[in-house]
């Protein structure tokens, strides 16, 4: 039991250490480690991420899905649905600034998930999202 707790603590520390590096891969594994706490064996899935990004949540009339502002092609500019302002691509392949700050990612997950999904996103959803945007977007 003690060994098991230590093991989890070490995993968490490792997770936190990776998050501190603040690359897309590190953010993904940080979120994945957190998701694994409630879903043992959790592994991020680009396929689930794709479903999440394009899902029409039916919560907000104007902001139905993530693609409403970010666009269906995550390598291209998006457009803010209310203000019309152009939004730089989410894909780190074309926009290297993406997912290089945990604080920034957290701030926007919080705002956009509350708006679109109607609640904060889970760690699993965030891991899948970044996995898809990085690998498949």
């Amino acid at each position, binding site marked *: 039991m003690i060994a098991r707790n230590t093991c989890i603590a070490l995993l968490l520390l490792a997770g936190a250490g990776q998050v501190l590096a603040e690359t897309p891969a590190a953010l993904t594994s940080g979120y994945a480690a957190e998701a694994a706490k409630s879903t043992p064996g959790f592994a991020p899935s680009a396929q689930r991420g794709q479903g999440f990004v394009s899902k029409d949540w039916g919560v907000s009339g104007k902001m139905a899905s993530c693609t409403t502002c970010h666009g269906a092609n995550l390598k291209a500019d998006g457009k*803010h649905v*209310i203000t019309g302002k152009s939004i730089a691509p989410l894909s780190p392949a074309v926009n290297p600034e993406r997912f290089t700050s945990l604080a920034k990612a957290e701030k926007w997950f919080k705002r956009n998930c509350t*708006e679109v999904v109607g609640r904060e996103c889970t760690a699993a959803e965030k891991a899948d999202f970044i996995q898809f945007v990085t690998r498949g977007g």
Partner: protein
Amino acid sequence: MKLKSLAVLALVFGSAMAHADKLSAPDHPKWKAECGSCHIAFPPQLLTKSDWQQVMGGLDKHFGTNAALDAKDAQEILDYLQRYAGTGSKYSAPSLKISDTPWFTREHREVSARAWSDPAVKSRSNCTACHVNAERGDWSERGIRMPAGLSGERDDD
């Protein structure tokens, strides 16, 4: 009315051009990043101190969206906005929208209803639909391009 005649008006009253110069303030990276992500970072001069205070006090319910910041960043940005804020009721509106202030209405009195509702404009808040260089701090009359096909469209000169 064509922009050419507007230009004549601007020359006659001169003040409009002078005003555009006053819209520049020293750069503030945090303000630009936080308040320039969903729309352009609106110039501090275009609302009063007390209006900015109310805007910054209600970021969790910000014109129908959530723009909440942590308290430290919010205070830092409020200080900046208030340092360069406009004075007088012409820079104030109960809605806290720059685009509802008497200053804005007067400055844009020649813009047609059709222009405001054009799909390329969408919202009065979308300043850069017409002020194409505004993001670089250029609000001058020369930097205005009306969306294609609208009255007030400017001939290239």
